[in-house]
């Protein structure tokens, strides 16, 4: 049952993603990609338990490395996207 339930989430999230992203205008495609970088850093959430849990050395090392890499994406991704989006301006009338 658990697997079916996970596959349901997969299906719905994929459809939702397609519907949402289709509406992003071409002019924002680069910020969309860097923003995607940031949210793909969600791996950080999964890596926390591996880095901070009561684990053997190998798991802790791998988890800590995953935390570091995912943090680059989260922090760097959001900041650079914000920097870019601040540049987009409308014509002053």
């Amino acid at each position, binding site marked *: 049952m658990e697997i079916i339930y996970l596959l349901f989430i997969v299906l719905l999230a994929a459809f939702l993603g397609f519907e949402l992203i289709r509406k992003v205008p071409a002019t924002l495609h680069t910020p969309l990609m860097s*923003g995607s970088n940031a949210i793909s850093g969600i791996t950080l959430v999964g890596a926390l338990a591996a880095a901070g849990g009561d684990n053997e050395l190998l798991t802790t090392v791998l988890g800590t490395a995953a*935390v570091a890499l995912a943090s*680059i994406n989260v922090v760097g991704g959001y900041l650079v996207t914000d920097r870019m989006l601040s540049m987009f301006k409308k014509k002053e009338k």
Partner: protein
Amino acid sequence: MNDIETIINLAYVVAAALFILGLKLLSSPDSAKRGNFVSAIGMFIAVVVTLLDQQIISYQYILAGFFLGGAYGAWKAKTVEMTAMPELVSLFNGFGGAASLLLGWATLAGMSIVALETTGAFTFITVFFTILVGGITFSGSVIAWGKLSGKMSSKAVIFTGLRELSILHIIAMFAIGYLFTTDPSNSLWLYCAIALALSFGLWATISIGGADMPVVIALLNSYSGVAATAAGLATGNTILIVTGLLVGASGLILTNIMCKAMNRSLMNVLLSGFSKPVEAGEKIEGEIKILSAQDAFYVLEAAQSVLVIPGYGMAVAQAQHAVREMQSLLEDNGCTVDYAIHAVAGRMPGHMNVLLAEADVPYDQLYEMDDVNPRMENYDVAIVIGANDVVNPAAKEMKGSPIYGMPVIEAYRAKTVFVLKRSANAGFAGVDNPLFFKDNTRMVLGDAKDTINSIIREFGDD
């Protein structure tokens, strides 16, 4: 589920809602900045709440990893040149893939001998998939980053046996996948899987040339999301599944847009390295008419409407600020200035838009190809800056051309076309872009930035 787990999962629902809202706000440049902020709050909630997890007993490694990675990310984000965005996104794609690979590995390493025996095959299949996709994303992105940043040649590396090598990789993936999931306690299969993934990413990307990079970056962006989803399936973490898929869908849609803009299928782009190089089709011969920057100024001074068509060359020459200055002078002179951006101009989706935004060009003056083509005849001058394929009439006129069928910005239908180009042989020469020989085309040779600056100076002397 105990209380804390319930709280964590409820917070994940909130975080997912904020990610979705954030993406929704990205549908307009006015609200996009707010959307990014909303999405960041979602991430903050998800991370902070996860720290409540009872499995987590020590925080020093988490904090060390977070501050190390966060500091590097912040430094990169603050210092990157806008022209270097494709490299940065590639690099971040790679980090995302690597993080998922390591998480997949850590999941396996964290299993006790009993757990290895009792856990269902589904988990091992998803761990294998995480390692595979994460590894391909990582090594592919590193190669893409190397090509884009000029650390290695951007030419497609092609050699005989590349096709066989790839087929071998795919067969090996199935074999190792089977061995890994049936015998997960044997680390050998794990190492084989990692090596195989890294190797495949390398060969698949090295055979793709610089001009096809927009497709590759978009696809690797998608993979980094898919890898996160797979890691979520392996660890039973719903927020990873949902969020990873949003990224996966985003990358896939962009990939599709890029392919359509080149009139090629994804397979055609990915396998282009495997086919024999296309014989350079019929060469077009004709006379190039050269114009000095000074004469270009006289034409522009009299123009009522100008269309600027930028390409990768504008990024290389860092000419966007000069272009913006010329735009202001033209507008003060009573001329309207529009920009036409082809979907595959530059090295990543939306590359030109960001450069022009950096130079303060209002985004409502940027048009897509389909908006400008119907009114091309109305433009007195179309200025092509560092673009080639996206304005190449061969795509419409020459059946033998490698780009035949690709939708292009039909600059040649404007009253006059200026092509700013670094160099061209004067007189008769064979080139692959018939636009250069059209009666209404004038070539302005030299570095794009210098040329535009000369035109700006002429305005000043006036």
